[in-house]
């Protein structure tokens, strides 16, 4: 228990978390501080490229693990199943109608790559290794949740929410393509590739992450300010309970798969995290009647900061008791 607290405190005092807090404060205090949209997109392209590449290099170092395929399959199944649990929990805890509940649920089956990055960064400072292919698992987990939510919505009624265009948009959305693509580039070029571009994607990584989290704090803060009233106590409870439940399911999956300590933690983090880029865009197209203020505020304003600050250290602590650091 002391260990968890020390870990959490240590995590809370990192420049990364404090940058998020600064952004949150600035937005809530109505400061004019903003990160231009193009810069924020540029930072996220950098992060996706770097994290994918490094994952690929790790795979090229350690060779292809027999567990790889099973872990990818498990990721897809988790992403599909978690929304069903989220949907049930929402119907119990809140008064959201089925459409809004399903839209929220989709976000919790999918993942947040920044939460994943924050997880790897905590592992790294604790000196814990993890499977390089967890990046590929992250990519696999982005989309199935959307399918599952659309199924929840159209049970019995028209299934006409998915057109071919939407499918292509979801599967080829920018972050999946960039993550998988740079993963493959990293796997193909290995240590030799890393030695060429390492000074760009390794050393400055955490600093860039700070600026990115500053922006996420700003965006989350503005969202919270505008969403006063939208988020009830029930929804708030959901936003914290759901990642706890998901992470436990992720833990079980990780233990069954026989992943390393780091791999289990990352699978817990992926399960616990909620999307705020790919899924919202898909929901606007397929489920325009759902209120974006609800799902975005929950995902980015409640669950994201919870995972970032308390969740990740907690998942690490829990996984450690099962696997032994």
């Amino acid at each position, binding site marked *: 228990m002391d260990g968890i607290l020390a870990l959490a405190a240590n995590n809370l005092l990192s420049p990364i978390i404090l940058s998020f807090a600064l952004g949150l404060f600035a937005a809530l205090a109505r400061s004019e501080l*903003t990160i231009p*949209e193009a810069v924020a997109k540029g930072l996220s392209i950098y992060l996706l490229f770097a994290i994918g590449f490094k994952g690929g290099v790790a795979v090229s170092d350690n060779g292809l693990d027999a567990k790889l395929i099973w872990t990818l399959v498990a990721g897809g199944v988790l992403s599909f199943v978690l929304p069903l649990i989220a949907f049930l929990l929402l119907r119990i805890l809140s008064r959201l109608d089925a459409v809004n509940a399903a839209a929220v649920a989709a976000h919790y089956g999918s993942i947040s790559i920044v939460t994943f990055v924050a997880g790897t960064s905590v592992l790294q400072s604790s000196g814990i290794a993890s499977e390089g292919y967890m990046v590929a698992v992250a990519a696999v987990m982005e989309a199935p949740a959307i399918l599952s939510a659309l199924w929840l919505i159209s049970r019995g009624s028209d299934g006409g929410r998915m057109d071919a265009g939407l499918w292509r948009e979801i599967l080829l959305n920018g972050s999946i393509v960039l993550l998988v693509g740079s993963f493959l580039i990293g796997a193909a070029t290995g240590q030799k590739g890393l030695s060429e571009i390492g000074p760009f994607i390794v050393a400055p990584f955490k600093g860039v992450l700070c600026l990115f989290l500053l922006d996420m704090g700003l965006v989350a803060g503005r969202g919270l300010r505008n969403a006063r009233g939208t988020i009830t106590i029930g929804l708030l409870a959901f936003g914290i309970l759901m990642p706890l439940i998901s992470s436990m399911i992720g833990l079980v999956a990780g233990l069954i798969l026989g992943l390393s300590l780091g791999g289990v933690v990352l699978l817990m983090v992926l399960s616990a995290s909620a999307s705020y*880029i790919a899924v919202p865009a898909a929901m*606007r197209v397929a489920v325009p009647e759902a209120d974006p203020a609800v799902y975005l505020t929950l995902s980015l304003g409640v669950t994201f900061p919870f995972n970032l600050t308390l969740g990740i250290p907690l998942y690490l602590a829990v996984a450690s008791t099962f696997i032994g650091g």
Partner: protein
Amino acid sequence: METHKAKRVAIIIEAPMERRLTDALAAAGVTGFSILPVLGGSGKSGQWSREGQLGRSGMMQVVCIIRPERLDDLLQAAFKVVERHMGVVTVSDCEVLRAERF
């Protein structure tokens, strides 16, 4: 200088719907349009701004200049896409130079 009567249709729509809108326009035979950025705004669904935007997709504006007799086709096509979505569709009169291009 000689000008010709035309209609200017401006459609403000969510960015994820942009491609669907322009595809629908193309299908209705409207091949001339321009896409302008929108930085923020306010409406029934509250206020938003591109820089503080959760999910960061925001809205765009599609502007079409068309011959008056083609207006109804265009509106019908646009309406099908905008129908269930946020968005504002306005039509106004204008004159164009070089009408042979339209």
